[in-house]
């Protein structure tokens, strides 16, 4: 459904290779794609507008780094900015010096408050704390029962009573003091941010037990409305943080950015499953990649940036595409890949490659293979390297002997080379749009 932003940007920048600086036109062309990607990820359109404006200011006039192409460079700026926006560090809970600390969970109906309350207790217990769960949702059918069942599963006591939610909260606080629970986790009923009466109730709970941590529990699949919801809850209650739930699906999760932008609160945790141990610290960088819909291609860019000799790479690119791509080039290419880490992993990070078994098998090389390959190619004559076709049976025996390998090793290498060449031909034709519909990441140097 969504084609990757990386591919679109490549397309946009096809014409621009080798330029010195990012011009306004370059950046605008790229940002049009960035804008659509963010909107498709459900980032609120006003947030997108501001964001794109900021990126534009940062990017225009920037020197294109020697070892990145302009498309990658814009993506990198976008990603860095996104990561920074969502909070560089991963935030921790505020726990009061003097117990009991009070944590209150709030949010819309069905966002995952009750589940998250239990999950937080699992975490707190791991830190050696003694939490008390508080059932302050007196509205939803069987809400108290739900919390009791969850509390039972994790051996955390659950406080409830037939009082009002405010009465329950204060009662729970007293109980915690009495029984020596050092953390009180209050589960509140789901409510609409526009329901004045129920928002007031939260306000009253806040006033009565003064939580150290009020967390908005928000569904990661939320669309444009995330902004209104988060803003209203924040204005009313001064949130301390956010928990983003249901990130175990395939949502791009743009709500993360929207919520962060309008509340300024850190996203502290990510819910990644229904089970009670499925709460993780939030990782802004991973979220940025997810919102951009680029898989780990960005990680790859960074790796490439660190390890590639770009001069060599751009020559290599020409060689690879030309018909006379030979064994010498093959060797250089292998060495460059090797520098980036295990080949399989590198290829797995490229969208489209990860699932192509053929490609993976093709590139299954380990360190030893590379040594062998090098030895074999070194034992060839210059002519043989340039024109592998001439390597007949007797030459193969000679090469094997010279390199201390076997004829089978030589055969395998030649076969591998032949297949690589064929694959490259396929890629190049795909790139030209011959095989439309096949999604294909590109090597950083192609």
């Amino acid at each position: 459904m969504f084609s990757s932003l990386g591919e679109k940007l490549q397309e946009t920048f096809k014409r621009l290779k080798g330029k010195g600086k990012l011009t306004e036109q370059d950046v605008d062309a790229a940002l049009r794609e960035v804008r659509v990607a963010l909107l498709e990820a459900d980032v609120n359109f006003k947030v997108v507008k501001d964001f794109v404006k900021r990126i534009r200011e940062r990017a225009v006039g920037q020197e294109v780094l020697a070892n990145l192409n302009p498309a990658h460079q814009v993506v990198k700026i976008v990603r860095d900015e996104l990561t920074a926006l969502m909070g560089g560090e991963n935030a921790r809970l505020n726990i009061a010096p003097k117990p009991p600390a009070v944590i209150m969970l709030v949010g819309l109906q069905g966002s995952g408050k009750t589940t998250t309350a239990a999950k937080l207790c699992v975490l707190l217990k791991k830190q050696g704390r003694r939490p008390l769960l508080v059932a302050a949702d007196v509205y939803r059918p069987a809400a108290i029962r739900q919390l009791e069942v969850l509390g039972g599963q994790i051996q955390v006591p659950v406080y409830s009573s037939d009082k009002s939610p405010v009465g329950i909260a204060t009662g729970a606080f007293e109980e915690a003091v009495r029984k020596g629970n050092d953390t009180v986790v209050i589960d509140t009923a789901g409510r609409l941010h526009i329901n004045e009466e129920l928002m007031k109730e939260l306000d009253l709970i806040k006033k009565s037990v003064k939580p150290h941590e009020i967390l908005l529990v928000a569904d990661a699949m939320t669309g444009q409305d995330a902004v209104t919801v988060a803003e209203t809850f924040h204005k009313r209650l001064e949130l301390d943080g956010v928990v983003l739930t249901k990130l175990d699906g395939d949502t791009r999760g743009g709500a993360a950015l929207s919520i962060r932008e309008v509340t300024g609160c850190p996203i502290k945790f990510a819910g990644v499953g229904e089970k009670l141990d499925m709460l993780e610290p939030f990782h802004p960088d991973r979220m940025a990649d997810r919102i951009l819909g680029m898989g780990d291609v960005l990680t790859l860019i960074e790796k490439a940036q660190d390890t590639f000799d770009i001069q060599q790479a751009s020559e290599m690119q020409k060689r690879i595409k030309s018909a006379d791509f030979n064994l010498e080039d093959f060797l250089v290419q292998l060495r460059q890949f090797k520098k980036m880490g295990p080949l399989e992993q590198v290829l797995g990070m490229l969208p489209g490659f990860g699932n192509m078994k053929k490609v993976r098998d093709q590139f299954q090389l380990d360190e030893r293979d590379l040594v062998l390959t090098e030895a074999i190619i070194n034992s060839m004559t210059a002519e043989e390297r340039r024109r592998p076709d001439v390597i007949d049976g007797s030459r193969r025996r000679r090469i094997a002997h010279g390199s201390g390998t076997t004829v089978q090793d030589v055969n395998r290498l030649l076969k591998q080379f032949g297949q690589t060449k064929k694959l490259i031909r396929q890629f190049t034709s795909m790139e030209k749009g011959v095989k439309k519909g096949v999604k294909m990441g590109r090597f950083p140097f192609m």
Partner: protein
Amino acid sequence: MGFVNKLRSSLTKVRRSLAGAVENVVSGRREIDESLYEELEDALILADVGVAAAQEIMSRVRKRVKELRLKDPMQLKPLFKEEILRIIGVEAAPLFLPKEPPAVILMVGVNGTGKTTSIGKLACYFREQGKKVLLAAADTFRAAAIDQLEVWAKRAGVDVIKQREGSDPAAVVYDALQAAKARRVDVVLVDTAGRLHTKTNLMEELKKIRRVAEREVPGAPHEVLLVVDATTGQNAVNQAKLFSEAAGVTGIVLTKLDGTAKGGVVVAVKNAFEIPVKFVGIGEGVEDLIPFHPGEFAAAIFD
């Protein structure tokens, strides 16, 4: 209170937002220009209609403005409404109930969208029509899901067929259908556990439930309703796709429209998969579910 009025009052916020946005955009404008189009597109995106569907709507609006040689921005309003109706359909898509009871209705969807609550409301809806209703507690996973359904059953005055927590949901459905046949029940409503559409094993479980229904009652399940939270963004498109593939979705229940979200993603869903909205949820009470009528919906929004 008639449908239109009830909907209109509950959708005042929607009205204010989408129609209001259109109103805001067009009023005070002298001419139809590029920036006007852009703002209208933004209004659609803000309603969660999605970039692709919004662009499609806008390109048709542009084309028609040209054809009709429109000059006055106010004339855009009816055009806009028509284009949205063209996608969501003019006719209501009522529930299909077979001549031979029992009708079997599966409720499916991702976590927390309002499946169980909508079942409770639907049970009341059918009861009011004098139908005999039976609920199947096939969410055997979520903590206290069965208790929750039982509370709703009590409110609606209907029976529930259940097993223990953790038992096989398909077995619960089997029991419920046997009971339905024996007790001459008109409508069986099956509550399933919330599941993310990306979880293959859980989607297999859903297929199994469907197979049991197919086997036990001819023509069943007669409706498979995907419950979509109106606050959901573009992910609902993936939800519609994968739930359709696994369980054959026949319609959508769009819940939580009493909030400020516009639920525009159903436009994208209808555009992509032709799945109609059949009911909308507008609150947490038994009465807060109403059959969806596109024409009246659009009227409530635009007129």
